[in-house]
């Protein structure tokens, strides 16, 4: 097996004595210290935070406006544009969930619903936020585009029971999405 030896830099005597290089290093770190104390750290302009360094002071300053499109927060259920439940209770998300946070009890489609073509709908849909690891597997697995990860990241619970989000809460948080699934409507 052939290999390529890495070329190591040759050190001069000055480098080997180490003192000069040490002083250079100290100057670099001191520059960082002075700049961050003056509030002029490198890259601060793009960051627009207040105070020392380029660190956001969390509860006062927040990332919310800067969260990327692909941010993975709490999972939510969404409704279609006609207001129907997109979830058809296929339970794929429940099976794929690595943390077993999702529990679905399949049931009948609501007779008052505008769309009766699908056979099932969730009677109960619960996500345990203490188990959820925000991996996004449910969103990937869903064939109906019914479950999406929102940008909600501040989930502070005072009670274990409050950690379990039921169907109503999930739909309220998810809201409505347009397009994407035309399986059940007039276009099909």
């Amino acid at each position, binding site marked *: 097996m052939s290999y390529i030896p890495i070329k190591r830099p040759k050190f001069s005597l000055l480098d080997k004595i180490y*003192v000069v290089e*040490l002083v250079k*290093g*100290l100057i*670099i*770190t*001191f520059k*960082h*210290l002075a*700049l*961050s*104390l003056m509030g002029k*750290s*490198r890259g601060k302009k793009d960051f627009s935070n207040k*105070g*020392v*360094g*380029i*660190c956001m*002071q969390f509860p006062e300053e927040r990332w919310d406006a800067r969260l990327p499109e692909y941010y993975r927060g709490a999972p939510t259920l969404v409704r279609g544009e006609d207001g129907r439940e997109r979830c058809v209770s296929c339970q794929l998300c429940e099976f794929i969930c690595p943390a077993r946070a999702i529990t679905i009890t399949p049931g009948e489609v609501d007779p008052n619903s505008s769309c009766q073509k699908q056979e099932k709908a969730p009677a109960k849909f619960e996500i345990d936020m203490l188990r959820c690891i925000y991996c996004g597997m449910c969103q990937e697995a869903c064939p109906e585009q019914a479950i999406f990860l929102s940008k909600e990241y501040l989930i502070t619970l005072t009670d274990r029971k409050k950690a379990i989000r039921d169907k109503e809460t999930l739909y309220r948080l998810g809201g409505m999405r347009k397009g994407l699934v035309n399986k059940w409507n007039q276009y099909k």
Partner: protein
Amino acid sequence: MDAICNWWNDLMSNDIWFYLLTTAVKLVIMFALILAFVVLSVWIERRVAGWIQDRPGPNRAGLPLFLLQRFGSKEKQPLKDVLHFFGIPETSRIARLCTWLRLDREIPTFGLMQPCLDGGKLFLKQETTPSYVRKLYFIVAPMLVLGPPMVAAAVLPFASCVDTIYGSISMCVANLDIGPLWIFAISGLSVYGLTLAGWSSNSKYPFLGGLRATAQLISYEVAMGLSVIPLLMMFGTLNLQSIVQYQADNGWTLLPLWGEGLSLQRWVMMLPLGISFLIFVTCVFAEANRTPFDMAECETDLVGGYHTEYSSMKFASFFMGEYAAMVIGSAVVVTLFLGGWSIGFGADAALASYSQWLAVLCQTLMFIVKLLAFIFFFVWVRWTLPRFRWDQVMKLGWLVFLELTVANIFLTAAVLYFVK
């Protein structure tokens, strides 16, 4: 009242009681100072680390004002009342400044409370002692780490002396004639703590950490002892109080700008003394187990090193011992090389002729300032240099420093003999 005064007079006129009482007072002050500095140096470490890495560091922990409510104050926002009392409108610049300092919620300490709270947390944490350790040595080890730096501090002078009507008080706990030797001897004991911790943990990585600590401390002890010999040749005494007095009169070791310090000999001496300083400081770093010499606890190859199996307050003792060693190391460097308590430029004698107590106060403050500056240097180096490799550390100790220090002694002797 007179009876008490007379009793006090009699007591203090007795040499033994005078010595005992003044020593006890100095002891308490010194001990409190060191413990305060341990806490302070943890805070300095974390804040400076933050600044160097472009972040604020621990800046939150303050004294929350809801505690006032707990203690019976019914008002929810004391700040508003205070502003109202002084007639300052709530939209004024002062009010906004107070809000920015978060005075409406807490008394800011700029994070100084953080190490205290951490200490409290460690104190309250669950103590787990693994079943396979050797109990006695396991318990003794943290004490052996925390104890020696405290004891070594006894000979460090933090101010000059004061003449009272009962006698003269020298401002160090024990005015021994073997100052540096005492410090080396006692701080060398702390290696037993690390070794015992590593061995009694009865587990692989702590054992390796303990071994490393032993080897490293012993190797650097040699170079450390030899590197101060040029200094002692110049001062001609081993008493730390007289060493500092000499520096106050004739210029600091590394800043000979007044008194006899302006002679040619002292300036030529700067070369061997500079080498001494470099080697001594490096050895102090190694002795205190600080980066770049923290071989004994490098996480990457030894998990946590010798204190892997420790928890709760025993771990905190190791932690505090490490910082105490750093504080004492800095104090020794300041005492030997940077003039100790001396204010410099002949200000000591002038102040002492005005008022000795004032001089002592100023000198103590000066000592604290120098100590803080050197602790900052310690931290600064830690966040600049990466850790050395194990064989490099050993090589540096035995193959470079030992030879250099011995050569340095001869160089000093030559300078002292030939340059007048």
